[in-house]
């Protein structure tokens, strides 16, 4: 779980904070929370695809 948290944080920081400024903008914050949900969604899609492929 700790490792998953770090992966999501690193991936989302990479995609959402491209030009770091003096504070996190509203858009960056929104992008970060969306990113957490989307990453989990991506994990579910891929988990399903792997199950299907192995059948």
């Amino acid at each position, binding site marked *: 779980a700790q490792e998953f948290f770090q992966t999501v944080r690193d991936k989302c920081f990479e995609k959402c904070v491209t030009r770091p400024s003096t504070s996190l903008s509203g858009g960056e914050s929104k992008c970060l929370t969306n990113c957490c949900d989307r990453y989990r969604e991506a*994990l579910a899609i891929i988990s399903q*695809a792997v199950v299907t492929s192995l059948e």
Partner: protein
Amino acid sequence: RHKAVFNELVSKLTDICWDKCVGTPSTRLSGSEQSCLSNCAARFLDSSQVVMAKFTKG
């Protein structure tokens, strides 16, 4: 044990396919992002077999 191998594979594929398929995160994944993710995972497994076959027969 199988569960751990499965989870590790899914984590690795999500890492790779996320970078290949997803743009700036918004309120939902688009249809093309979703199918890219799904295809990416399946094609990675196909590619593994191609590479494995190549390693086996040289």
